[in-house]
């Protein structure tokens, strides 16, 4: 209740209202563009947030995430091409409804379910974040070091097919984090005499390069045409009877989405497909799934929108970004000198209250802008890619330059883009690199401070109960992931042996 009361005054703050509406509008547009993920949509905005007031800047980025989750369903339903990965499950029944001439209703179900999922997600975010961060005052340097290790342990689940590749990607981020002034002695490291590198490399340059610039390079290398939207549907919300039928899949979607959002590394795509499967399992009309079932849209759309809010729980409480989008949001916090984690609720409670209010405005704004923006989304999706990508490149170059008025920064971003492009080709994941980059300083500085304070006694990390607990959880996280991978590899080997044998 206190959390709600603290957030109420921010609902009348013009900067919060404007940031939320701009963010959700930008998010819907970005999400609707196939190939432009929520994280890229957010990364494009990052440079603009430098000049903004911190709360409005965070609201802008978080609202973009919410808008993008709905925006992704627009091309999924209209051209069978999901605008975001999380909207892939919506294609199954959304496009079928479109073929049956019910595109407006499909979009209405998506928007309505997104609203429900977001509201439930926001309620859980407000309920869970503060208690989880309540242990803040007990945190010591060893505990902060252990928190960083716990954050890095998420890499075990984010590494895709190869854990080794995920670890290499994380080390790349950790290496970049060592550039600049040493956190304990103040001596220069890897600056090669350049004054531009003395302050280190800011995560925003690397994030924009890895996510947005490398995507442009990847799209330039493909040059394939995308489908155009021919129809001009109008959004139609479900009637009372249909809304009643959608309650069960929406509750399933909200439950699964909230759980997956709180778990670092799970994400909206897994939540969408899981809730789609569960909705089919529990439906009274399972045969309709895949043939244009409204429930097949309601469940995944509720789930991926619930994820957009609950994914902020580990970020706000522990400073651990569990997805690309929350990593970009973490970048937004860092730009303004705010370190998400246990102390954020103590030192910057106003930012948190403003964020909650901004998210509420963004969710309501999503419905309003979702209705208003549909024709613009259709127009944008139909624009020729060469012009759109040329403009995005110009926007990225201008945005990065505007941060410090430095062409050196632009060079760093371009280099990160090139590295990201080759990481895509060699199939290295990005998120571990971002995690290494943003957690590198936290891990190193607190590790060394702990040793200085304890007189080089390494047991300081096991004597502190919070540190011990976090390190144990990290170890369990890594062990669980390795066991899961080993079991999956063993099953694959068995299948491979059988198929080779049968072919032979």
């Amino acid at each position, binding site marked *: 209740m206190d959390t709600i009361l603290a957030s109420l005054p921010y609902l009348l703050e013009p900067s919060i209202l404007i940031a939320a509406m701009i963010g959700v509008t930008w998010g819907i547009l970005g999400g609707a563009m196939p190939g432009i993920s929520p994280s890229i949509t957010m990364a494009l905005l990052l440079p*603009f947030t430098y*000049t903004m007031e911190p709360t409005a800047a965070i609201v802008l980025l978080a609202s973009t995430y919410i808008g993008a989750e709905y925006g992704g369903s627009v091309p999924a339903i209209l051209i069978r091409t999901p605008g975001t990965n999380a909207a892939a499950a919506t294609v199954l029944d959304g496009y079928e409804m479109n073929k049956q001439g019910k595109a407006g209703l499909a979009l209405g179900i998506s928007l309505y379910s997104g609203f429900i999922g977001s509201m439930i997600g926001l309620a859980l975010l407000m309920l869970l974040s503060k208690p989880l961060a309540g242990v803040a005052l007990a945190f010591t340097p060893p505990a902060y070091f252990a928190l960083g290790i716990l954050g890095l342990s998420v890499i075990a689940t984010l590494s895709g097919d*190869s854990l*080794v*590749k995920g*670890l*290499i990607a994380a*080390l*790349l981020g*950790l*290496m970049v984090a*060592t550039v600049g002034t*040493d956190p*304990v*002695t103040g*001596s220069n*490291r*890897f600056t090669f005499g350049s004054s531009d590198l003395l302050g280190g490399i800011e995560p925003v340059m690397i994030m924009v390069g890895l996510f947005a*610039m490398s995507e*442009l*390079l*990847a799209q*330039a*290398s*493909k*040059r394939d045409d995308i489908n155009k939207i021919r129809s001009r549907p109008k959004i139609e919300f479900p009637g009372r009877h249909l809304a009643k039928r959608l309650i069960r899949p929406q509750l399933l979607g909200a439950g699964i989405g909230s759980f997956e959002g709180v778990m670092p590394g799970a994400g909206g795509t897994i939540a969408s497909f899981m809730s789609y499967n569960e909705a089919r399992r529990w439906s009274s009309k399972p045969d309709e799934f895949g043939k244009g079932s409204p429930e097949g849209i309601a469940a995944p759309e509720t789930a991926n929108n619930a994820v957009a809010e609950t994914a902020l729980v580990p970020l706000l409480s522990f400073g651990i970004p569990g997805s690309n989008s929350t990593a970009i949001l973490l970048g937004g916090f860092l730009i303004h000198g705010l370190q998400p984690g246990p102390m954020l609720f103590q030192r910057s409670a106003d930012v948190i209250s403003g964020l909650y209010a901004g998210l509420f405005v963004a969710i309501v704004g999503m419905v309003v802008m979702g209705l208003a923006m549909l024709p613009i989304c259709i127009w944008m999706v139909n624009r*020729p*890619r*060469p*012009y759109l*990508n*040329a*403009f995005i*490149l*110009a*926007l990225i*170059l*201008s945005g990065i*330059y*505007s941060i410090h*008025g430095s*062409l050196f920064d*632009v*060079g760093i971003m*371009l280099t990160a*883009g*090139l590295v990201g*492009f*080759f990481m895509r*080709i*060699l*199939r*290295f994941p990005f998120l571990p690199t971002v995690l290494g980059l943003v957690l590198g300083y936290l891990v*190193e500085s607190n*590790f*060394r401070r702990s*040793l*200085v304070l304890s007189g*080089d006694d390494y047991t300081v990390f096991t004597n502190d109960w919070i540190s011990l607990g976090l390190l144990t959880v990290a170890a369990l996280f890594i062990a669980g992931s390795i066991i899961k991978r080993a079991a999956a590899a063993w099953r694959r080997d068995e299948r491979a042996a059988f198929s080779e044998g049968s072919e032979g």
Partner: protein
Amino acid sequence: MITRDAVGGLAAIGLGACYLYFASQMRASSLADSFGPQGMPLVYGWLMLGLGVVLVLQWLVATSRSSSETRQAAHADAWRGQGRKILRAGGLFGLAAAYLPIVQTLGYLPSMALLTFAVALYLGAPLTWRPVAIGIGGAIVLWLIFVQLLGVPMPRGILSAFGL
């Protein structure tokens, strides 16, 4: 059969070795703690090197277990069209990199118009009035946003006399 894993592993070994070399060149200050400013970099460097070796070893084991036909098919499949893709991406990267020296000479507005026009053409837009209009229009929109609205002092060049 050189796979993506092999290339990734070799790149990690190269990067780890270079990073280790520079980390080992750091001088420890008399004020340094026992771990020192070079402590973490040395750990990261060795880990990168080690993981690169693991990736290469994984590739060698996988190669030795597969038949030569499978290897050839996998090789062809893994790298088909990649050279062309890299060249195309390299072209866009070159245009973006060329913007850096050009913007210092021409200034923000003309170089942004030039960049947008050139990139649109490079990405496949036909040479008509549209890429020209979008180049000029896009540059003006960005100039209005960044210079006029946000007050960012963008690089000034040949048009500085006109206040642009």
